[in-house]
């Protein structure tokens, strides 16, 4: 009786392996929908060169203040960068400071709310040096229009501390 159960188990295991092997070797079917193949990639933006420290500081200052940073100030801030290991932390702190500075030149809340699409397009062009795609425009427009507490400063700060802003 015991030997009989063992033989049955053996047959069952062999059968299972056989069925699994057959099903796993099934040929894939290629469906053709008569449209051109599109390679989907996150890198369609085409930016691949990281900004140097000096570039990052001078571009950020220019984007937020609307004028060029002086050579002396650039040298001083560059040294501050070198004095702390976590560069992203210093960048974040630097942008938080410029955004909070009285010399900052960011569109007003009223201007943003009057024409959110224009604000988004202009901000993308200014900070990311490109136009937003449809998805980006839709998403940010939805966020701004549905949330009265999103200010231009928050949008600027978010974009300037994103990964894309670190590249050109």
């Amino acid at each position, binding site marked *: 009786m015991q030997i009989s159960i063992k033989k049955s188990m053996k047959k069952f295991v062999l059968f299972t392996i056989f069925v699994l092997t057959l099903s796993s070797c099934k040929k894939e079917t290629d469906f053709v929908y008569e449209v051109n193949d599109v390679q989907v990639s996150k890198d369609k*933006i085409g930016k691949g060169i990281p900004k140097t420290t000096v570039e990052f500081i001078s571009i950020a200052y220019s984007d937020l203040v609307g004028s060029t940073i002086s050579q002396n100030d650039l040298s001083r801030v560059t040294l501050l960068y*070198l004095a702390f290991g976590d560069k992203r932390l210093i960048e974040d702190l630097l942008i938080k400071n410029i955004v909070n500075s009285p010399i900052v030149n960011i569109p007003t809340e009223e201007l943003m709310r009057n024409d959110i699409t224009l604000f988004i397009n202009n901000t993308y062009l200014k900070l990311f040096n490109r136009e937003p795609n449809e998805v980006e425009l839709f998403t940010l427009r939805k966020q701004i229009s549905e949330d009265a507490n999103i200010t231009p400063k928050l949008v600027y700060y978010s*974009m300037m501390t994103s990964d894309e802003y670190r590249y050109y």
Partner: protein
Amino acid sequence: MSTFIPRRNFLKKTAIAAAGAFVAPYILPGGRLFAATGNRIANHVVFCLFAGGIRNIESVGQERGNLLPSILGGAGTVDPLIASGMDLLPVTPGNSLRSQGTLFRQFRYAQGPTGHFNGHSTALTGNYTLQDLSIKEPPKMPTVFEYYRKHSSPAQNALNAWWVANSLGPYPSLNFSSYPGYGALYGANFVQPLTLISTDGANALSNPITLSSDEIFRVNEMRNNFNASFSKSGIYGDNDVVNSLADRDLLQNYIKQQLLDAVAGAFNNPWGAGAAMNDDMYNVFFAEKIIEQFKPELLVVNMQGVDIAHSNFTQYCNNLRKADFAVGHLWQTIQNTPGMANDTILIVAPEHGRNLVPNTILDNFGQPALDHTSDETSREIFCMVVGPQGKVQQNQIVTQITGESIDIVPTIARILGFDQDIPGGMLPGRILNEALV
């Protein structure tokens, strides 16, 4: 003859085999499950690179008087020939470090050029820099910070590992190496306080926009959407130490507070030393601030004011006394910091010595200056290991030639309990067991 395996047994063995298959990849070569940090001697190590190039002749040799009263104890009597060139310093309270630990009088920086960066690299990597040392690149061998963060279990964040340097130049690159499998991911938080906590720092960084938790949530939501469209985020993490968002907030608040305190004048005369307070003392002062705020498990701080010896011997002696005062103050701060008191081992060592034969430059007191060009005297240094009773041998002086610069990293690893987890062959030095209980 057939063998019968009961069903219960079969299932049991299968379950054990399956569990083994899942667990096996996590078993270390040493046979331990995960990198077990255990058997620590103490939970904190502070390593003070008493750097800049110091001869044993002036330090533990006391040829110009007792220039190290905090470390060696006794009165700070100074050679009359240079006494008038020395600044007055307050008395460091407490017992001498020597009475609270082990002094290796004849330590050695045995190989490699006696350059400051070579010496720093050696002390922090546990490997001599015999060739190919580039001052523009991270070290080739892992630093003590990377060993600590990679092999400690549970894993330690960068808030627990600090490299506090008194100058820029090549020194920022010593917080992590280019060694495969280590690197920035395991690096220390580097800071050079004298540049960061400054008027320029206050102007650029002390007035950040304050965001409420709701605003932070909104910012993160928008930023996540921006990042979703862009895949290149590797610039951070590959090249720089990265703190978690929560730790970043702590650090930003800390930096901001230091800047505001500096602007308010809180750091004008913090130790009562008046005009005698030099850059080395300020660097140690800011290291103390980090100790008080974050209670790190591993902190390395350096001083280099004695390098003025290239042109001014008396100021070299003056700065040596100031470095001694700073170390004494550092130890007092550690003992006054809950969480670190009685649970910290302090290691003090110069990165290298100085030549026996002086150069031709005389100072105002007629004393000839000293360079460091790899003669035998410039390889002679000392090392002091200080700590609580029961952890460190007290009041002990090792007089024969014992110990090298490359022994400091293995000793730190032993104190913090991860020495067994460092792969073999990476550290040629040994643990300074003479100092440990």
